[in-house]
């Protein structure tokens, strides 16, 4: 077997992947009613994908990933109000702003253990939460940023009440960024991240510059989270302080954990499961949802993520890479 053939097999598209995306796009044709939920799923999926880039591929635990989500949301919201209502430019601006914040704070998470990383990421999100709260003139404070009028997509399609345009917009953004992420994890850069996560000392002994790779992936992940935040701001025409909540950081971690870390589809599958369960369980009472999530996490941790994950992933890995 030739080496080149082995390499090209590594990144080949498989049938279930194609089916997955076809179904996701086919959902656009559903009768109105579910698109608002689907839009939320797509946004959470993108957010979880961004967390997977650092947690699953580079092994960085974050308890404050909402920092970038919220930054993207506020950036898109303010840009829409102050500069231009065009959603595409707004999305791009949000991505750039979140990436800049990611690059700046990446220096903080390079140092130290899991524990310091947990606290630094948590603290960064809290600082931003306080800043957003302290600047009501800009952010609307606790009332939220209101009065956004987002322009039509491609100058043509207006955002409607039923969320079909919103879902289309979020899904296309998710798909494009997913393709990029897929490309990246199969690149030499992605391979070096996988090595760093498994054994940083060993990676550097093979000539991998750990620091610059981690800075790069943290920045990339922040950009993705910023895009997710921007999508939420633009498709709901509203930004509240909740975009920076600890709860949001915890939720995305949970969604990713449900789907499994380190295989790109984990974030997507997790987002679907998370949102659907949330929809069903909180229909009766919001406490139930929280209780079951908590119980799930406790059991998951006790059984061991590896052991539980192996079972499920063994099945899935046969159909998806």
């Amino acid at each position, binding site marked *: *077997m*030739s*080496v*080149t053939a*082995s*390499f*090209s097999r*590594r*990144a080949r598209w498989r049938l279930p992947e194609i089916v997955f995306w076809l179904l996701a796009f086919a959902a656009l044709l559903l009768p109105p009613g579910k698109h608002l939920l689907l839009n939320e799923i797509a946004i959470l999926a993108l957010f979880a994908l961004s967390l997977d880039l650092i947690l699953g591929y580079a092994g960085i635990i974050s308890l404050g990933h909402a920092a970038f989500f919220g930054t993207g949301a506020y950036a898109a919201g303010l840009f829409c109000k102050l500069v231009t209502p065009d959603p595409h430019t707004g999305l791009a601006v949000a991505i750039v702003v979140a990436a800049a914040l990611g690059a700046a704070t990446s220096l903080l998470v390079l140092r130290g253990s899991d524990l310091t990383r947990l606290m630094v990421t948590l603290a960064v999100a809290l600082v931003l939460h306080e800043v957003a709260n302290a600047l009501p003139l800009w952010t609307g404070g606790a009332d939220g940023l209101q009065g956004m009028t987002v322009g039509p997509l491609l100058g043509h399609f207006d955002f409607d009440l039923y969320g079909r345009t919103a879902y289309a917009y979020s899904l296309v953004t998710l798909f494009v960024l997913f393709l990029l992420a897929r*490309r*990246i994890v*199969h*690149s*030499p*850069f*992605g*391979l*070096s991240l*996988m*090595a760093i996560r*498994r*054994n940083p*000392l*060993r*990676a*550097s*002994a*093979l*000539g*991998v*510059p*750990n620091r*610059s*790779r981690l800075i*790069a992936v943290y920045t990339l992940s922040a950009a993705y989270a910023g895009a997710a935040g921007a999508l939420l701001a633009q498709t709901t025409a509203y930004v509240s302080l909740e975009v920076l909540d600890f709860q949001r950081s915890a939720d995305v971690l949970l969604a990713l954990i449900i789907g499994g870390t380190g295989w790109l589809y984990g974030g997507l599958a997790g987002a679907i499961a998370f949102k659907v369960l949330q929809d069903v369980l909180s229909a009766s009472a919001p406490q139930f949802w929280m209780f079951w999530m908590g119980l799930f996490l406790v059991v998951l941790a006790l059984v061991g993520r590896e052991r539980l994950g192996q079972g499920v992933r063994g099945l899935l890995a046969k159909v998806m890479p």
Partner: protein
Amino acid sequence: MDVALETRNLGKRFGGLVATNGVSFKLERGARHALIGPNGAGKTTFVNLLTGVLAPSAGRVLLEDEDITGLRPETRVRRGLVRTFQINQLFADLTPLETLALAAGERLGYGGRWWPPVGGRTVAREIEHVATRFGLGDVLDRRTDTLPYGKQRLLEIAVAFACAPRVLLLDEPAAGVPAAERQDILDAIAALPADVSVLLIEHDMDLVFSFAQRISVLVDGALLVEGTPAEIEADPRVRAVYLGEAGHG
């Protein structure tokens, strides 16, 4: 005299403990040199100082007459100072193909690229070459932790080789390998190109005496003596140190 790797007065203390004590050591170009010493002599610390995992408390490290004391581990690797690991530190769930692609990719400067998939033509050719040399061609696509231990140790050396070493530090390359697979590893080491300078850190005296042209003995973090195998064998101080060290000779 052509020196590949040199330390000058290298020292390392952990709190009150002196792990490396004023070691001045020279590895000549193309050398087959062994570093031996009883357990706890400070061999591991010495290797970590050479590769930059630890920062020395005193002294310098020079690679081909250039001071590399302050360089990061990965920079030293790119300059040609490469090591293998004693206990198994391969990436268990990656394939040998991926591990080799990582090493070769970094060396060829592709490591940071985001867009092209792993394994361009240059990297592929490089891997084919290395895999053939170390007899790994038929196991490239298997998970590393499913390989026989001998193959894993061969991969360890092959990966280091893919980093294009000018100086290669072999840390107990044959430790734990079943007798049946051992010869493959000895052959692979013997077949290393002559222009690669090799420092073998080893417990196994048979291997040391069959391989090394020079031997240094490290005791309590300091160099006790250096010489040809015959000189070392005859040295009463070395005998004294190893007296009571059962098994290894």
